[in-house]
């Protein structure tokens, strides 16, 4: 029993193989839903598209950068659907109001998420909330543009952060 000779040949990329396969399969499934055809030519184009999408995703979001718990996020879908409805109703109400009740301004919201996927995901999710759009970030905080600064924007965002912390922070992979 000699020691495994190709120990040195086991590069970091080895541990990336499951991620690559997982993402590739996911992209191909998305393709199949969007282009439900079993013609060979369509499938070939789908495979090429999935490979390109996987390659792009590895460039933009390397597996080492941390991961998102999509399963945990699914539990929040009803909540954010409802928030999204409230956001639409809020905008519609203001748009049709003859007095145009707006008091736009910036609200700086401190977040515990480290810069990276978790913070970006938080920004994307919170952009669905009523009255706030992420408009930049500074050290340890996201700057939101609020439609009405009289609303408790910062408080609501802090509450969402509490709600999402468990779902967005993976066990490891964050520095």
């Amino acid at each position, binding site marked *: 029993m000699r020691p495994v000779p190709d120990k040195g040949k086991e590069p970091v990329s080895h541990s990336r193989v499951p991620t690559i396969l997982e993402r590739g399969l996911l992209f191909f499934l998305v393709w199949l839903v969007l282009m439900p055809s079993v013609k060979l030519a369509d499938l070939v184009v789908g495979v090429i598209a999935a490979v390109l999408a996987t390659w792009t995703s590895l460039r933009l979001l390397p597996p080492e950068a941390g991961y998102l718990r999509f399963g945990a996020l699914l539990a929040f879908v009803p909540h954010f659907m409802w928030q999204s409805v409230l956001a639409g109703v809020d905008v519609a109400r203001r748009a049709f109001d003859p007095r145009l009740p707006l008091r736009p301004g910036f609200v700086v919201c401190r977040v515990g998420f480290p810069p990276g996927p978790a913070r970006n995901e938080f920004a994307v999710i919170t952009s669905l909330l009523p009255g706030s*759009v992420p*408009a930049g970030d500074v050290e340890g905080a996201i700057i939101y543009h609020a439609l009405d600064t009289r609303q408790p924007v910062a408080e609501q965002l802090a509450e969402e952060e509490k709600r999402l912390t468990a779902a967005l922070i993976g066990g490891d992979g964050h520095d």
Partner: protein
Amino acid sequence: MRIAADIFTIVAILTGAFFFLAGTVGLLRFPDTLTRLHALTKADNLGLGLVVLGLLPQSSSVFGGLKMILVWLLVLLASATVSQLIARAARRGGPHP
């Protein structure tokens, strides 16, 4: 049953169209880039969601319905991403009316 599905479709799509109208009215009436961004993203996301919801009972197959939901989710993702990029650019350049 068919009638109930059709009524649901009509109500949901009309409500969706109402939110598209609201988004457009906001786009015209709101004072600057950032507030207009709110109008477009929030109202149109909801409008498109309602249109998709209304079309689901009319879909001929489960795959067709799945496709519409997926398209809606892709639009949500794109609009959330693009609205942030525009908001960042607008904040740096200062809000122009």
